[in-house]
């Protein structure tokens, strides 16, 4: 059975990646399964300088989901290269560095400095985090800005550049086209959905920043719709599907909708070995359904005529 898939110029051992911000710097999960089974690890979002992140409370649970506003806490590009990358580099999987900046120039500088690090397989540009007032959502929602930013980052790195789209839009396809127009080699679809929860007794938001990002199985149907819309509009562009994936069948749904790979996010919190279990379930599904090559599934959704 073949589980290998190419994604842009990456060769992935399986279509299962782990999602940025939900898999630490990889090492945290090494006790639970062999990371080499993953097609890639997307790191915590890296900014030029270290960031302390947002005040607490930063997370809260919702029905089949959670809201977070970690505030893109990270060790910064320099410490990442020195302290975190060496472990990741020898983990046997592709290292995709998720990055962001607070300004246009910071984005470009961050991309350039990460490009210089040995062992980075690709960059994933986070233009969609709804948490940070300055660095986040603004770059990701206006198509013209997104094109320009993508083009600028594209020009400073020789590695594949993925753009991670925000779902907080009325037109995901317009954002996808904008990123591709700027030279994106692939799209990550989707980041978290802007959301809120309130402590009814204390009459306060449950998240210190009032709004945070919703993730987990609750958002899967939204993510799947967006992957399908983007794939239908841009069938040649590789998509990494993200949002609430919790089982092997969920993976198959995303592949059928047009994703080439998927990313496991919040489920790694419930179950540190979730990605490995999900990969096992994917293999079992393929065996039952006599599918010898996982690539057969990509975009293989059948939409009956007239619908």
């Amino acid at each position, binding site marked *: 059975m073949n589980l290998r898939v190419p994604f842009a110029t990456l060769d992935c051992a399986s279509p299962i990646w782990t999602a940025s911000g*939900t*898999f*630490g710097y990889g090492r*945290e*999960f090494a*006790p*639970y399964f062999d990371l080499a089974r993953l097609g890639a690890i997307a790191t915590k979002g890296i900014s030029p300088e270290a960031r*302390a*992140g947002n005040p*607490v*409370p*930063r*997370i*809260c*649970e919702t*029905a*089949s*989901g*959670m809201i*977070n506003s*970690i505030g893109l*806490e990270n060790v910064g590009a320099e410490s990442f290269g020195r302290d975190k990358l060496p472990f990741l580099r020898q983990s046997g999987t592709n290292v995709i560095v998720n990055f962001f900046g607070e300004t246009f120039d910071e984005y470009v500088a961050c991309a350039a400095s990460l490009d210089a690090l040995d062992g980075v397989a690709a960059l994933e540009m986070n233009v969609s985090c709804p948490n940070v007032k300055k660095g986040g959502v603004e770059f990701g929602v206006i198509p013209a800005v997104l094109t320009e930013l993508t083009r600028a980052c594209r020009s400073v790195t020789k590695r594949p550049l993925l753009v991670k789209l925000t779902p907080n839009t009325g037109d995901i396809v317009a954002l996808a086209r904008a990123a591709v127009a700027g030279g994106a080699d692939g799209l990550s679809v989707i980041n978290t959905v802007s959301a809120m929860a309130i402590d009814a007794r204390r009459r306060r938001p449950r998240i210190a920043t009032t709004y945070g990002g919703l993730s*987990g*199985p609750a958002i899967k149907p939204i993510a799947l719709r967006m992957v399908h819309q983007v794939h239908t509009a841009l069938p040649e562009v590789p998509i990494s599907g993200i949002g609430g994936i*919790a089982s092997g069948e969920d993976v198959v749904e995303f592949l059928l909708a047009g994703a080439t790979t998927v990313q496991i996010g*919040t489920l*790694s*919190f*419930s*179950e*540190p*070995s979730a990605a490995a279990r999900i990969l096992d379930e994917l293999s079992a599904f393929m065996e039952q359904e006599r599918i010898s090559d996982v690539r057969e599934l990509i975009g293989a959704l059948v939409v009956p005529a007239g619908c």
Partner: protein
Amino acid sequence: MPTEFSARVLANRALAPGLFVLELADCEPLVGCLPGQFVMVRGEWGRDPLLPRAFSLLSARHGKCELLIKALGRGSRLLERSAVGATLQLLGPLGRPFPVPRAERRDFLIAGGVGLAPLLWHAEEAVRAGAKVELFYGARQEAELVLRERIEATGCRVQFTTEDGSFGRPGRVTAALQARLDEEHPTLLTCGPNAMMRAVVEIARARNLACFVSVEGEMACGIGACLGCAVQSAPGAARAYHYACIDGPVFDALQVVLP
């Protein structure tokens, strides 16, 4: 090394309305873990509740463990209904324990509510190790003071308190502690509501006593990956935040600012 494993419910004992002990089998991965450490627990339900819940161990011996749980919200109320024979998913042991009891140190243990769990275990281990500990255990009313026989069986000096005066010394547990501190100069170990722990930390500071707190707060992963369990570091620390799951839940009170 923390391990993911399935545990079987051996017993589910109601102690008082909304307070119960789950006794679990198949807990070999917890061998060697210590009071103050915790496990993440998920039941056999769907994707809601999605996240596991953290529980301090009340004991972990011979492949079994016990949890003392208060039925509060959605997760704990589902656990309250666990049938004997049901399977729970556990991840553990996690976190850093209280300082191991030592004969040359004298520990005062100040427990509020289900914060009793790690401290009762600590008391049992201390007695076994020949160390002397005293337990201060407070609740609002008598019914909430659970596991009293087992507490007394340790043979430690114990001070029960209730706010309504229905059992033991009336008033707050911290008042009982204060009174006793005029005579002794122990190390304080505390676990319970944040307000209670803040008062204990205040007392420790005023009397210059070593003090260890067990911090609870929202946790998603328990393994240092989500960064959700941040606890503000004490002023002047090198890092803005500590993480309850990997740096704690037990902290030296000088390290962190209790929420």
